[in-house]
């Protein structure tokens, strides 16, 4: 938390995220701009999208996104344009290629592993005969529980 606060403090210009004067007149276009900018990271903040950030740089990036949109770029072209300038660091959703496969596959692989191990464990527990040597019978158990609950 502390770092987040520090960052916010340093950057919190007395303004907030998207300013009224940035908003495009065409609501469809503005909707697209918001969608794109919520997936782009503000470079000087931590894990905040430029859509949410108060930083001056985020404002510049938002304006850049809108400029490209007005110039007729598709959503993908706008993102590529920004990535060309700032690197893949700006993407809040990491790319799927290359070493990032590890990141994307870690969850599913671990899940398969977990389910597999769980299944083996359950299977083993269900076929092992119970050590019933000196266990209480069900009736005795019930009586015992009754005594305990009193």
């Amino acid at each position, binding site marked *: 938390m502390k*770092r987040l606060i520090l960052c916010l403090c340093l950057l919190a210009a007395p303004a907030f995220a998207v300013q009224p004067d940035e908003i495009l007149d065409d609501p469809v276009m503005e909707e697209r701009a918001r969608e794109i900018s919520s997936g782009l990271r503000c470079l000087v903040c931590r894990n905040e999208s430029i859509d949410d950030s108060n930083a001056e740089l985020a404002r510049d990036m938002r304006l850049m996104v809108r400029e490209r949109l007005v110039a007729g770029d598709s959503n993908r072209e706008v993102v590529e344009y920004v990535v060309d300038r700032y690197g*893949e660091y700006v993407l809040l959703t990491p790319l799927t290629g290359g070493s990032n496969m590890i*990141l994307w596959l870690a*969850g599913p692989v671990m899940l398969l592993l977990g389910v597999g191990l769980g299944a083996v464990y359950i299977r083993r527990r269900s076929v092992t005969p119970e050590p019933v040597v000196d*266990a209480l019978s069900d009736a005795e158990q019930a009586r015992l529980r009754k005594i305990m609950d009193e």
Partner: protein
Amino acid sequence: MITELGHFALILAFLVACFQTVVPLVGAHYRWPGWMASAEPAATLQFLLTAGSFMALTWAFVISDFSLQLVVANSHSDKPMLYKITGTWGNHEGSMLLWVLIVTLFGAFAAWFGGNLPPTLKARVLAVQGSIGVAFFAFIIFTSNPFLRMDVPPFDGQDLNPLLQDPGLAFHPPFLYLGYVGLSMTFSFAVAALIEGRVDAAWGRWVRPYTLAAWVFLTLGIALGSWWAYYELGWGGFWFWDPVENASFMPWLIAAALLHSAIVVEKREALKSWTILLAIIAFGFSMIGAFITRSGVLTSVHAFATDPDRGMFLLMITAFFMLVGLTLFAARAQSMQAKGVFSLASRETGLVANNVILAVSAFVVFVGTIWPLVAEIFFDRKLSVGAPFFNFAFAPFMVALGLILPVGAMLPWKRASLKRTIKPLRTAFVLAIAVGGLAWAMQTGRSLLGPVGLFLGAWLVSGAVIDLWSRTGRGDNRLSRLLRLPRADWGKSVAHAGLGVTMAGVAGMMAWETEDIRVAQIGESFEVSGFTLTLDDVQQVPGPNYRSTMAEVSLERNGREIGTLYPEKRVYPVAAMPTTEAALDIGFLRDVYVVIGDPQANGGWAVRTYYKPLANWIWGGAILMSIGGTLSLTDRRYRVAAGNRRRTGAVEGVPAE
């Protein structure tokens, strides 16, 4: 003088912790009663000394003793008294002292209320807890001493970070630390059991209250932090998947898994080694959390050098305890034989599924959190892993958890008939489908998020109600029997329902919130989602240690006045920082959230308005979860276990040995 006494008490506590680590451990090994028993007064003394030290520091903040470096850096004489006190832990050094105070508090608890623990186990638990104390005392004394003096005391301090001058954040750290450090107790129990070479049902029962308490405190701490982010940061986000947030979320997930698997140990003597492993990992995540927060390594990959001493020290503490814990685990895990036998359809299977989902989801969060660091070090790629990734990778686990939860919760132990268990739940399922379908039909956008969230919410809440009702048996007097059900049953249902409420809240808010950003002239009215807002006035108002720009916005719906909101922008002159104070009209089904921005060139003011459906359900659900946990914690069997009747706990539900 008081400061020096506090400093001295801290060093004494360190020495007592050293004693507590060594003597009882040796005593337990050779079965020397005197040596073992020495752990108890040591734990008490250690707690009292640390409490004295903490009080001395608090006193320095209360009287604004500017001869202390820490007070100068984090306080100011104009600050309200509440924030002078909370300023004690609003900084690195003070918060570490609070952390270690809680370590000693839990140790003292185990000493005071562990009367029915076997003497060797008790001595070992306290020794391990003492060793955790040693590590953190050393950390404080050698790298982060809060009692350092100024050479020349200044006239006034530099003020506490204004964002921390807020009730939500003032009490967020103590709760979070109680949670983090509560997991140190389960770690101590796990390591002690490994040294002892014995894990049985009684162990499960002893360790569960600490896990439960830690989980309740973590829930409250995280909820407070997220609530604070919601109203303070000015746009109503409540969770950012920020490394520091993830640092508190991972232990929460693992603690949730642990408190469920401990039930299996307690009731059925199965899943023993897994539970031990979870207990070790849970504390590991707590420490990694402390490391992430304080070293700044993940904040920015390049910030590692900003405080290498502290970062390295914490990393070494983490590595040491994990290494010892996992080595012991590897050496002794085989000796923990499972006893309970169960079939595929059984409560045990449900809890195994719960543990798989929670543990894997925690792993996903962990990988996402550290991936930027790994990618930079090993693959030379600078990249970000942000909210879209986590939402995509994490949400499916929660959906799966929500789907199986009501069924698993109602399955009987050992051997069950899935058909018979599902039968009473059909009503809940139909109801949930209806709620989800209604949401689907009423919304305009075609996102699945909202309907799925409401479906899960309704499914969990009604499932919890049916679960509780089914415990009352048949025939008359079911209502009076309902009230006499064990608190653990109530706790379980309330907590599960709380999870459903939170899920519905998160999904509802994310799916259906609307936003309005505009320039409004004074006196101008505008519409947002059926509400009419009027900017009546904007004024400069002086505060105790800040200046405020306060707007007056009246809120109407269909011509009926609902209330007046006062969003503020504050500037704290001493710290030279602005903060936004959003104004909220809080309702059961929605919040209206107004933020005032800058004055515009043409005379108006920038105004942001949000309509946030189901916002309060997020925190309402968290409160329900912690109430559920607390109910369970006050269940009779723990109160009995805490009393003098020796080991009554070990008998119930477990075959005699």
